[in-house]
């Protein structure tokens, strides 16, 4: 019966005490026998069912190691694996949003200018060689990253993957980077520093600004930082992508500048395309729907700064981090490629293409916005002639949007 158990699980069984709980994935026949047995074990408290899949006959269970023998002898059980932790490396998350299909069209961000306002960047990291066009700091120093967050974010948006033979490549790997350090070595800052960073980025005529930061107080978008963001988008035509925040799953947990009307506010999904519990939810305090869209943001492996204080090191040049901060640069890189494909797009066109191409995850609009971003679908929309549309996108009252979504279900 051991053939039913994956080799790595067999190894774990040898070293596990009989009472040690193991989390496993069981593939079984579409038979009531398995579920009856599972239900019985559930009643006796010996097994906990963690997840049941619909597309394949498989169940995630947690049970004492000793019970695996019983499970092996069940005729309806076909195979058992350990449920291992996973990393969503850039070589997983970037293909998931179908960026490589857009690269194959000759679009990698050449000539596009991306501003990252964060904790700075490691200018020696091989993944950014020759592409840091300018860097500055509004919190002291020269813009070098003494935290690690900004380097990780920059790697997702535009890392070349040079230190990993192209494996950990960002979404727009040929774009130029404009780096403003607006957060200190603890990842903290003030709104005024971010505002100064935005003015600096505008002076450098960037195409898109990434803000993987925010306040923890729910807002209505009337604060100075959100107002500045809206003004930059509307009057100067620069796209701004902002993290929704990590204060979920409660509603109305998005702070400034994620509550700004015209920015693209980005939540996070996990590796199974479920909205991450930490991802902040809308609506805004004045009743608008946010976030606008979600992108991968859990366990993302990207560039690691030499002086990194955050993230779990995976290789010398790479580390793993989770957060809506990691989801946001996926959107920023996507915006750079869309603008490269069609330079005539206005920010509202870019937002419409991204939101319109998003995959509906069947979660609440206040959690997923329009859904999970799909760059190829957004590209196809961005290349169509643009019909006349209302000026604002995704800023309608969230009840209105909810009614529309529910109407399509009913």
């Amino acid at each position, binding site marked *: 019966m051991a053939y039913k158990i994956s080799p790595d699980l067999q190894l774990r069984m040898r070293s596990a005490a009989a009472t040690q709980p193991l989390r496993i994935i069981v593939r079984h026949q579409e038979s009531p026998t398995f579920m009856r047995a599972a239900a019985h074990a559930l009643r006796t408290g010996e097994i906990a069912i963690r997840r049941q899949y619909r597309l394949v006959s498989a169940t995630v269970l947690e049970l004492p190691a000793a019970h695996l023998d019983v499970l092996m002898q069940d005729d309806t059980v076909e195979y058992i694996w350990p449920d291992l932790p996973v990393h969503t490396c850039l070589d997983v998350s970037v293909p998931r949003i179908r960026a490589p299909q857009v690269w194959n069209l000759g679009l990698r961000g050449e000539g596009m200018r991306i501003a990252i306002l964060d904790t700075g960047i490691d200018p020696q990291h091989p993944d950014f060689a020759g592409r840091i066009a300018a860097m500055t700091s509004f919190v002291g120093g020269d813009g070098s990253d003494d935290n690690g967050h900004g380097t990780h974010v920059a790697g997702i948006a535009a890392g070349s993957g040079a230190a990993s033979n192209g494996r950990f490549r960002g979404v727009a790997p040929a774009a130029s980077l404009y780096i403003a350090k607006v957060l200190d070595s603890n990842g903290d800052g003030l709104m005024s520093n971010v505002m100064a960073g935005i*003015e600096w980025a505008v002076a450098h005529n960037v195409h898109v600004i990434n803000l993987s930061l925010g306040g923890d107080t729910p807002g209505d978008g009337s604060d100075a930082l959100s107002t500045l963001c809206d003004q930059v988008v509307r009057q100067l035509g620069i796209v701004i992508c902002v993290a929704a925040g990590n204060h979920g799953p409660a509603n109305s947990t998005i702070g400034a500048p994620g509550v700004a009307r015209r920015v693209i506010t980005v939540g996070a999904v996990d590796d199974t395309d479920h909205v991450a519990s930490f991802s902040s939810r809308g609506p805004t305090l004045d009743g608008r729907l946010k976030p606008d869209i979600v992108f991968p943001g859990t366990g993302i492996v990207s560039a690691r700064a030499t002086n990194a204080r955050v993230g779990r090191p995976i290789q010398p040049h790479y580390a793993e981090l989770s957060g809506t901060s990691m989801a946001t640069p996926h959107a920023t890189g996507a915006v750079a490629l869309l603008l490269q494909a069609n330079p005539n797009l206005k920010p509202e066109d870019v937002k419409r293409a991204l939101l319109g191409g998003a995959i509906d995850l069947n979660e609440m609009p206040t959690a997923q916005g329009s859904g999970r971003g799909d760059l190829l679908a957004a590209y196809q929309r961005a290349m169509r002639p643009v019909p006349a549309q209302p000026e604002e996108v995704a800023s309608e009252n969230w009840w209105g949007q909810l009614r529309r979504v529910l109407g399509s279900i009913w």
Partner: protein
Amino acid sequence: MEKMTPALHRKLGASPDSMVALIVRTDGDPARYLPRLAEMGFVVGHQFRLLPGVAVRGRARAALSLLDEAWVLRVEEDQPVTAM
């Protein structure tokens, strides 16, 4: 648009001698008002052109006095932001 939220007004009034960091939106180029801000005891940080205004630090009492200045459009706290 009100110049200051009631919550901030209460907070400043409760401890008038405390130091506060503020963003002050101004009617036009903020450079015109720097002498007046210095006179009121504020230390000026960043000046903003796209959304005219300044980041300042000063006493809560002085912050409340800003409400009497005709060129002041809005006073708000310079709130903390963090990496997400």
